[in-house]
């Protein structure tokens, strides 16, 4: 179900106070407060796989390269390993590509049910005329994209122009039609955590289905502190409206340990519901390989070599 959004409600966020050292402290201690071992660790890692938006966003992407990525999305973990754990039907949450790669991805994914997410709106900087950005969304949707990862105009945040940000996001939401929208805030560009919180609120009010940290192209991408601030705004939005908005950290998660830490963050700050692909996605490309190695070790008792795992 899509987030219908609300009117622009400045009063929900204009008095937001964020103490950065306290956020850092919570983010630093949170992973140390929870520990997962053995089967529980394996299950949480497989859950992370379920939530991955397996991503390729490179200038040299080709249809064949995208097809290989899609094959990995369909079988993210070696069949023998899954069989040993008695797990079946595991896929990633989605694949995420540029608009021109949506059609090849759709073809490659066939009837697997795995959604295709497309970045749009002049990704990653977003500094294109609004009509072109909206046209890009419509193009991606036409190509069959199920989800659109849009980027916001950072200048609206930096200049405190919340109405402009809201209007832009509303227009994008409309252009998405039935496709679900992820709003990339590019938190590395917004710098202050209060900016991150305010932009998160506006994005949710404008109808984003997920709020997403980064394009993967900023100087700093997803971090636990930034994520903590964003998920707390999701909590507050839910408390006010009853609407559950999802969260997508992107660009900073590389290790199995990261995958556990972010899930602990979701569980502790938002609860069990936010551990499903419907409300939690991880934008990543190399993360899956590390998870697969850990799973392999869990099943076989041997440490794994990446060349023995299928390439994404």
């Amino acid at each position: 179900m899509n987030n219908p959004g609300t009117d622009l409600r400045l009063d929900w966020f204009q008095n937001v106070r964020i103490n950065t050292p306290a956020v850092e402290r919570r983010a630093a201690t949170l992973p140390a407060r929870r520990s997962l071992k053995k089967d529980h660790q394996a299950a949480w890692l497989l859950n992370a796989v379920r939530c991955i938006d397996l991503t390729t966003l490179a200038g040299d992407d080709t249809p064949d390269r995208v097809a290989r990525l899609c094959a990995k999305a369909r079988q993210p973990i070696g069949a023998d390993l899954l069989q040993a754990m008695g797990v079946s039907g595991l896929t990633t949450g989605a694949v995420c590509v540029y608009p021109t790669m949506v059609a090849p991805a759709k073809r490659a994914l066939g009837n697997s049910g795995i959604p295709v997410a497309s970045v749009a709106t002049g990704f990653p900087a977003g500094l294109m005329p609004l009509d072109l950005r909206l046209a890009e969304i419509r193009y991606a949707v036409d190509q069959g994209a199920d989800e659109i990862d849009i980027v916001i105009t950072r200048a609206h945040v930096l200049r405190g122009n919340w109405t402009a940000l809201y209007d832009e996001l509303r227009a994008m939401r409309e252009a998405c039609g039935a496709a679900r929208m992820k709003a990339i805030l590019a938190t590395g560009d917004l710098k202050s955590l209060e900016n991150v919180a305010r932009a998160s609120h506006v994005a949710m009010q404008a109808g984003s289905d997920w709020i997403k940290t980064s394009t993967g192209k900023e100087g700093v991408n997803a971090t636990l502190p930034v994520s903590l601030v964003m998920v707390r705004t999701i909590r507050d939005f839910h408390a006010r409206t009853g609407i559950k908005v999802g969260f997508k950290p992107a660009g900073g998660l590389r290790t199995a340990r990261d995958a556990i830490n972010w899930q602990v963050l979701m569980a502790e700050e938002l609860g069990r519901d936010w551990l499903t692909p419907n409300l939690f996605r991880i934008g990543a490309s190399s993360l899956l390989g590390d998870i697969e190695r850990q799973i392999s070790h869990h099943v076989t008792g041997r440490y794994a070599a990446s060349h023995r795992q299928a390439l994404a």
Partner: protein
Amino acid sequence: MTRVSEIMQTMEYGPSVEDSTAVRDWLSRRGRFGHFINGSFTKPGQTFETRDPSTGEVLAHVSQGTEADVKAAVRAARRAQKGWAALSGTERARHLYALARHVQKRERFLSVLETLDNGKPIREARDIDVPLVARHFYHHAGWAELRDTRFPGLAPLGVCGQIIPWNFPLLMLAWKIAPALAAGNTVVLKPAEYTPLTALAFAEICQEVGLPKGVVNIVTGDGATGAALVKADVDKIAFTGSTEVGRGIAQALAGTGRRLTLELGGKSPFVVMEDADLDAAIEGVVDSIWFNQGQVCCAGSRILVAEAVAERFETLLRARMARLRVGAPLDKSTDIGAIVDPVQKDRILSICRAATEAGAELVGGQSQDGCFIAPGYLKNIAPANPGAEQEIFGPIATFSTFRTADEAVELANNTRYGLAASIWSESATVATDLAARIKAGVVWINSANIFDAAAPFGGYRESGYGREGGAAGMLEYLAEPPVRPARDAATTVPVATPERATTAGQGIDRTAKLYIGGAQKRPDGGAMYAVPGGLAPLGGRKDIRNAVEAATKAGKWAAMGGHGRAQVLYFLAENLAARADEFAGRTSPSEVEAAIARIFHYAAWADKFDGTNVQAKAGHLVNVLPEPYGVIGMTCPNAQPLTGFLSLVLPAIAMGNAVVAIPSQTDPLPVADLYQVFDTSDLPAGVVNIVTGARSELAPVLAAHDEVAAFWHAGPPQERAAIDRAATGNLKPVFSIQNRDWTGPQAQGEDFLRHATRCKTIWMPYGALPAGSGSAAY
């Protein structure tokens, strides 16, 4: 469904229990422990059991220290002390460094042992206690090295008796032993009976690193062993524990002249202003009252929230509380472990019962099987409710609201205690104002329960006196250079019906009075007594009461700032100099000259006795500020009545205190003549109050007064015991001052200023931008 796919449905954490095999092997190898005396373990005597509170399982048998054991340990410490003190700073530093390193090498072992013995979550033992232990020894290795550079002329005290509590067993050991050893003392330490094991493991580390025999001695046992240590021939007692026991120790030591530092209980305010980051403050609560099962003396146990945000704060608090995991301490996902002992659990539950019977509502806080209590808080709680007044020492906070910053301060200070405070506001203006006004030894702005070896820790009021950590902590283990003693004039019993008047033939009759609140007052009893030069008022209990009341109203004096006070003092010198001849007639020209010089000395200091910014943790602004006590009571020597009086009163008022002084009993008129000098020097009313009369009667009344925050005794030593005992009522520190030449250089200086102030350590984490964004803080 398989197990993994099942977990993928529930997404539960599952057990993650730290391995305790190595610790259990050690315990079964050691079995029964003796004491650690003179470098080796004694044969176990009569033993008691120490248990894992989470399961009730007996972990080990530990010896009950007898008086003879304590004596043997003190003897060993005494024998070792001279040699230890004779080592160079670098040599002592190497030993302390080795202790730090060996604690680190045994990090896992010590964490697990602490968790087993105490019941605290392994995460806390591993991530907080043990790293701080190592940090403490590192830091004090540095102090050993720098002792003579930073504290020239100061000497170790000798043998220190140290008694520590069960809530942070190894950390409190480190807080006690590290500074003592760095300064050149040797120690006899008694760990708490519930939690003796990490101290015994530490004894093995002392052997391992080759610490000289007798430098560290550890005697285990219960309160009786502690009492034997208090009675023993030691030069100092350092105690951390309950206010009740601390008061008993202060009483036992009354009149002995032994040094004493007390780190006692608390009921610390946790103030959330309207402009706070509420989520940050919620985590602050978790780190305060839900840290170590709430068994933390400095826990922010009284949550005070601005009415404007109280509802939202409570909603967030409940939600956060619901996610805390109570359970097996060794499980790495446990937030709240076991209460240390069933006795303590019963105590917590009984206070909660009393609180709810008195009308408070308990949210959460259910008793669970075994030594477990769920986190909770008491709401709708009146200030006089037993749950609001008593230290619960469990995972139960109180929750109440305030309307304004002033009311927050008033509520925060409405307690006998003064250990710590936590203040949450995104306004630096508001937060620093509250930090200044709340009476507590440690103030955490936008943070809670952070500790560091460089940041002094200790209390105001009935939370005790003395500091641990940093330079202030080192001073507690060092002695000032000896002063050249002088004989004071004997005190005679004042006679209320004078036999002969000596004022005849001196012009118009003058009547000396008391000086209270800037006005000359007749004594309440209406009697005078004969003194050189005439008659002096014979003050009584009620005059003391009135004088203290006047002193409490002199609050603006502290707020004038150092420069403002210096101006008044210089003016005082000017006006005294103008009447030098007259005062010389009362005393002597040289004493008047010395008095004027003394005033200049403290006028100079008034704006220069600075606090420091200490190097605690990166990203934290940590300021240590000397604050005045408020009202200091004092007795002055008989001889040299003018300089004796001024040498005591001036350092106290220069630092912003108000004073109630009992001047020379036998020769008070030189001081009585000062009243007019005070008046003409713009000294605000109530800053100096003077009650003349029988010192032995007045001093205990003044020393017992609950508004008086510190006491200086420069009278005869035989009067000290009564004063010390009287001072234990509100646990004011007594500065006992040997008589000396009050016109000489040994009657002034920083030692007096230190006793006129107490440190407040204010922590403020800073950093506008998150990590990786180029902020200076990270």
